[in-house]
């Protein structure tokens, strides 16, 4: 048959998949299976009995029978659903303005929308506290106290996820056919009707896909919920952490983890189905952007920018402002031996993890080029939350949990999907005939890769590495589970300061959060400098 007779040099280098597959097996699949096994075993019941006061029924159903745990699960889903609703309402109009209007700084604004992806979770949580917390800017101007309300957590969720939806919706709106829209207008549709009948159906699958991700991020979120949720509004991930770290109820935690996995898995499944539907060629008859004219259009632009300012920039600005207001005394925390050690640990762990993640991501993307199932596997580490990964590792490798190699491997597990995804997209974007042209000009497969594919792939690799580095630098959940006190990173040090009483410690945490944000941003920019792609600065293809 045709495929069987393809020459060796044209086949995908499937053997490259061995390393990432083995890594996924050891670091993710086996720990998760161990977690599932623990959850389904009878041992879980004893732990849950302690939580619930002894309820009957199957152990794995206990979280739904216990009012306290049921609330945790339902609230986790509810806050994720509310966030989806809010980002949809705010994000679609903003995206429409960004997709349809041309204005000075538009490209930079789109780039800046990547910022929440780079800001570590804990820093974002600190930003929300600096803005809306009990001693935040909102309280200082006399705003109603928001502590012990769900507002803090929901606002934090919107900060992180509004950009996900805006970017996705902007991309989708740019794919809408200009000809179809023009046809609708000539057939009598008003701009508003044309939006509902032409643009909205076209972008709906993209929105659904983005909302799946938002739900996944919010439901499985940890750092934000830990700091902003408080006792009442903490999510199921925080509950799992509490059960493991403070109450040593591994069985109960496993059952909760099982349900979390089921819900995030279902969400990821829907996401992957939607993503497959979106894999269509880009349109060439895009709608041309226009400079706003008239008060209405300028007002729309101002509104969109205000929304982005209020929900995406304000927490970052607040954290900087509060850190500056904290005074020189608080900034002295940066020179304390504990901070310098944490900085060293952050760089050491992140650097090693980045190297490992880059190697694994490259192998995965190259092997998965013509292998859809393998490509989907790269998403697994994003589906299973860091808390569950760490918990699974804790259960499976108890004697290894306080070892640097395991910690670095766990960092790499969380970071490498970014490299794999970016490189895979880069490979997809390569013009089809370049490799063949190089071969016909006398280049061997390796030489064709080295001289043609590799240089063209570098921008995508750098982009993936930048996100992987930012993820590693800001890592929090895994470090909290798996590290020793002397291996504190900047993230865990911030958390330690937050746990200590007094305004001075809060100020120190804010200064450290500011420093961590600067570090994550610097690392990101160092790798993904916002210059043009040397091979193709304007996105042209020869």
């Amino acid at each position, binding site marked *: 048959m045709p495929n069987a007779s393809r020459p060796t040099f044209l086949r995908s280098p499937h053997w490259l998949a061995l390393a990432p597959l083995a890594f996924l097996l050891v670091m993710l699949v086996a720990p998760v299976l161990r977690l599932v096994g623990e959850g389904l075993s009878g041992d879980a019941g004893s732990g849950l009995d302690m939580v619930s006061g002894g309820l009957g029924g199957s152990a794995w159903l206990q979280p739904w029978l216990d009012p306290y745990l049921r609330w945790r699960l339902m609230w986790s889903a509810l806050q994720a659903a509310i966030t989806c609703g809010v980002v949809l309402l705010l994000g679609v109009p903003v995206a429409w303005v960004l997709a349809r209007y041309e204005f000075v700084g538009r490209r930079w604004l789109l780039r800046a929308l990547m910022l929440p992806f780079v800001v570590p979770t804990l820093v974002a949580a600190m930003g929300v506290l600096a803005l809306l917390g009990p001693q935040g800017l909102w309280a200082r101007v006399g705003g109603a106290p928001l502590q012990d309300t769900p507002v803090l957590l929901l606002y934090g969720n919107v900060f992180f996820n509004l950009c996900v939806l805006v970017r996705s919706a902007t991309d989708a709106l740019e794919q809408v056919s200009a000809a179809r829209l023009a046809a609708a207008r000539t057939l009598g549709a008003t701009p508003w009707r044309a939006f509902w009948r032409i643009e909205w159906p076209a972008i709906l699958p993209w929105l659904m896909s983005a909302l799946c991700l938002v739900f996944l991020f919010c439901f499985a979120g940890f750092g934000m919920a830990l700091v902003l949720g408080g006792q009442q509004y903490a999510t199921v991930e925080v509950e799992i952490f509490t059960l493991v770290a403070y109450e040593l109820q591994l069985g109960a935690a496993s059952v909760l983890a099982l349900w979390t996995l089921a819900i995030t898995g279902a969400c990821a499944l829907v996401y992957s189905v939607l993503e497959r539907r979106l894999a269509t060629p880009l349109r060439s008859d895009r709608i041309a952007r226009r400079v706003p004219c008239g008060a209405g259009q300028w007002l729309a632009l101002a509104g969109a920018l205000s929304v982005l300012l209020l929900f995406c920039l304000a927490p970052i600005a607040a954290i900087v402002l509060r850190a500056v207001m904290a005074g020189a005394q608080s900034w002295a925390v940066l020179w304390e031996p504990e901070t310098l050690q944490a900085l060293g640990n952050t760089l050491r762990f992140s650097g090693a993890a980045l190297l490992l993640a880059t190697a694994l991501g490259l192998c995965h993307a190259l092997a998965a080029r013509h292998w859809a199932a393998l490509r989907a596997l790269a998403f697994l580490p994003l589906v299973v939350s860091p808390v569950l990964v760490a918990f699974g590792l804790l259960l499976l490798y108890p004697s290894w949990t306080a070892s640097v190699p395991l910690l670095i491997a766990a960092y790499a597990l969380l970071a490498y999907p970014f490299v794999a995804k970016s490189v895979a997209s880069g490979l997809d974007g390569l013009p089809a005939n370049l490799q063949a042209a*190089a071969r016909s000009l006398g*280049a061997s497969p390796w030489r064709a890769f080295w001289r043609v594919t590799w240089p063209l792939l570098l921008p995508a690799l750098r982009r993936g590495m930048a996100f992987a580095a930012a993820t590693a630098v800001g890592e929090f959940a895994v470090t909290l589970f798996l590290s020793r006190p002397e291996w504190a990173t900047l993230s865990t040090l911030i958390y330690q300061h937050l746990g200590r009483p007094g305004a001075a410690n809060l100020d120190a945490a804010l200064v450290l959060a500011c420093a961590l944000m600067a570090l994550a941003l610097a690392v990101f920019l160092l790798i993904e400098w916002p210059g043009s792609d040397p091979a*193709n600065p304007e996105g042209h293809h*020869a």
Partner: protein
Amino acid sequence: MLELQAITKHWRTPGGAVCVLLKDLNLQVPQGQTVALLGPSGSGKSTLLKIIAGLEATDAGQVLFDAQDITHLPPEQRKFALMFQDFALFPHLDVQDNVAFGLVEQGQRRALARVQAVAMLQRFGLGAHTQARVWQLSGGEQQRVALARALITAPRLLLLDEPFSALDADLRHSLRAEFLERIAASGMAVVWVTHDETEARSVGQQGFRLVDGGLVREW
């Protein structure tokens, strides 16, 4: 001389069904001659070129060149040149490095290869663009770069896959004459794939139409 003997190639549809694309196809291209291959989209013209270039494997049959069986020879060892419909110029290299690419792969020192590339580009009227990036060139200029890149290594056979389909009618006409002149000067055998019969008749000493997986001689 290029000789194709009973070439067969199957094609798997997106639904998974296996169809015959090329069936017991035979062709001879004598040295110094240009053979035009005609056929509608999807008839297998480009696949046939890729089989000749070694970029696709046959399911059955043999590819011979100067009586040697090269069916399983990898493309870099065939010393043929294939010019793609979309030119396939390397966007990360400037014009001279695009043209010098094949020479470097033949083991020539990069500096020397560049000198030869610049000389070639000057002959092609592109002396002012040697250090330009390929996307900065017009369609016709890109076409000339692609031909210069194909010819600089003095290939044994030139394979052209709809070389003018991306150009407008006026440019296509003027470039065709230029191409024929340069190809004639090189004295090599050429397989020229096109769906335009006027173009095929103006370039090919022999013309074939690809019908139901086989070749039917037109002239």
